[in-house]
């Protein structure tokens, strides 16, 4: 655990208490079983806003608390522990980051204040296929009159179905595969020509496929400069990756804690199964991975807060490492629970399903190994 400031400690403790009281895993299970397409509970989301979590990275000038990414990461780690489904990451971290990095003063004033107040859900729409590949953006935006017209599709947009505001990566020049020629647009969820299809995924969160058919936006909807979307997008994604990694760390840590408890209580052959050395060593290795992951996640968040040059590399590291650790932790959770872990009535399956989705979003370990190697020049 990083050395926390008093504010950060309070934020984490509040999150821990709230999650236990209001959003245990059972709450997520209930949401899932309800079949509600939104993928989150609006009442809980409202409470998050009331507690100020939606404004943790927002400047005080726009109604936020400016506690930084490490602070928000602490909250996400706690919500990740109980699989709390909410638009917090998408809205208060990802979309808010895009506005912070690329937004004009007017855009910040309009949108960041609403985000901080918990008044809207926001989303980032970047990928168009099943694999993360921001530079492959093909959705086009063409200058038309006093604005732009967007045509194309986006896939698996987290909170894309519920979002009031969508930050859309569009191609205004070049070919899919080019980093150059991208522009970010702020599009409202109810825009004419925008169709949203909610997806039912294994992790039961809110995703949507979006179709843009002649969606027209004003010139003021451009985030940053036309054609200058790539650096904003990349930096936004890195922050989203670090935040998601924090959530995944919490999910993995809880999977481990529950499993460790089971190792201590489940008996076979007249012994607690945790007395078997083969399981002890596996548990110790998993604990080692968790500790290593924690260091990466905290370092990435701190680098963002400090504006360090290596924030991108650390975000890739954190996302990859959190993915691998959560992968292992979720598999071990099922295996060490044996048959009961295979039942839908047990929570292990929920962790497993969430694990693979979180691994894939914003690039899996394979993607980030490749990126890390490129950043290191090999």
């Amino acid at each position, binding site marked *: 655990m990083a050395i926390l400031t008093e504010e950060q400690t309070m934020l984490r403790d509040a999150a821990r208490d709230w999650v236990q009281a209001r959003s245990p895993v059972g709450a997520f299970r209930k949401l899932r079983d309800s079949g509600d397409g939104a993928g989150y509970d609006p009442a809980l989301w409202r409470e998050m806003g009331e507690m100020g979590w939606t404004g943790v990275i927002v400047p005080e000038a726009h109604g936020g608390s400016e506690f930084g990414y490490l602070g928000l990461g602490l909250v996400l780690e706690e919500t990740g522990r109980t699989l709390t489904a909410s638009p917090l990451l998408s809205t208060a971290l990802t979309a808010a980051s895009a506005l912070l990095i690329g937004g004009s003063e007017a855009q910040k004033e309009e949108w960041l204040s609403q985000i901080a107040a918990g008044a809207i859900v926001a989303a980032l729409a970047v990928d168009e296929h099943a694999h993360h590949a921001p530079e492959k953006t093909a959705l086009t935006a063409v200058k038309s009159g006093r604005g732009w017209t967007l045509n194309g599709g986006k896939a698996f947009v987290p909170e894309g179905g519920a979002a009031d505001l969508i930050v859309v990566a569009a191609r205004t020049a070049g070919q899919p595969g080019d980093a150059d020629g991208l522009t970010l647009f702020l599009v409202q969820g109810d825009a004419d020509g925008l169709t949203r*299809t909610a997806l*039912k995924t294994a992790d039961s969160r809110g995703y949507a496929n979006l179709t843009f058919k002649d969606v027209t936006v004003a010139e003021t909807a451009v985030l940053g400069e036309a054609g200058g979307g790539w650096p904003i997008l990349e930096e936004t994604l890195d922050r989203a990756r670090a935040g998601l990694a924090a959530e995944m760390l919490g999910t993995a840590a809880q999977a481990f804690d529950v499993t460790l408890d089971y190792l201590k209580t489940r*008996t076979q052959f007249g012994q607690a199964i945790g007395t*078997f050395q083969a399981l002890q060593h596996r548990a110790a290795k998993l604990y080692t991975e968790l500790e290593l992951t924690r260091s990466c996640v905290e370092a990435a968040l701190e680098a963002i807060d400090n504006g360090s040059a290596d924030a991108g590399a650390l975000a890739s590291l954190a996302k990859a490492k959190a993915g691998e650790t959560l992968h292992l932790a979720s*598999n071990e959770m*099922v*295996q060490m629970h044996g048959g009961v872990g295979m039942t839908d009535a047990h929570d*292990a399956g929920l962790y497993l399903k969430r694990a693979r989705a979180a691994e894939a979003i914003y690039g899996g370990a394979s993607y980030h190994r490749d990126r890390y190697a490129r950043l290191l020049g090999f």
Partner: protein
Amino acid sequence: MADLEAFRNEARSWLEANYPPSLKTPMTEDEAPWGGRKAVYKNPDIKLWMDRMASRGWTAPTWPKEYGGGGLTGEEAKVLEQELRRIKARPALMSFGVWMLGPVLLEYANEAQKKEYLPKIVRGEIRWCQGYSEPGAGSDLAGLQTKCEDKGDHYLINGQKIWTSYADQADWIFCLVRTDTSKKHEGISFVLFDMTTPGVEARPIKLISGSSPFCETFFTDVKVPKAQLVGALNKGWDIAKRLLQYERQNISAGGFGGTGGGLEIEDIAKKYVGTDADGRLADHDLRARLAAHRMEAKAFALTVRRVEQELRAGKGLSPATSIIKYAAAKLNQDRSELVVEAIGLQGLGWSGEGFSPREIGETRAWLRSKGNSIEGGTSEVNLNVVAKRVLGLLDHQ
């Protein structure tokens, strides 16, 4: 060898004459020929094919003819298998009775029991389920507690089983019960009874994959005729272990499959990930891991072939059986993980719009594969068995 060729010719003509043309499409899950009293046949040819094969005893090719089996030698059975594969025949009967119970009945049951149960298994009349695991006795199977009391003219059974495959579909159960509480392994007996006996209740368990192939099964004052005990009282553990060997063999040989449907994993990956200018999978990291997996799969297939060859050469049931189960589980799980990774988020669909049935099938198969290293003996128990029985390592003193 001449005889074998004669048998091949005969089998081939018979199969060509008797295999129903309507079964030439791939079998879907709800067309699986499990038989039994509750069976519903979507296509009557499924039942026709079962009956025709059963009439020759070829649903249990190597069992003696006197119990309804085919009376074939191992070599003839192999030829029959080849010929069935040649015409891509669907299985005529899928049956725990054939795969697991029958072989131990042949070895341990009395004559009356063999005459009673085996022919019905061959004909697919009775569908069997397996009452082994209990909530408190998973890997430690011999810790089972289901109580079986001698009531003079019958046994009285009380307790609970779990992970009973298709108990809700089955007609009869072969069941391990505790007949002596003062000993562990020597207090277990092996009994058979009808699932319609009063006091038997099976509740399906929903798995993380969404399917419910297993049940919790409850026994409340279930009366079982004494003639339905197999082998001697308190001697059921030997039968149980023997049956587990057949089960593991079956799980291993059958493979776990996934829903590949003919597509190799690299074809799936190419479709979703794309290729580079040299025709290689565009994600080189994934490509290296896919290649490693395909090589493991080949090594495994070659090992299964080798074990079979050794078996046929008369070397008996190989200790490698435990290896095969462990390796098969790992391999199928690795494959499923790679498939889901290759398909990306499109491979994490659960239902509804946006996903093809095949994609959803892969998601479900991936989740289901997690059970491979648990059911039929966990991988941990497999490794213990290899360490102790094959490698001769001892327990802690």
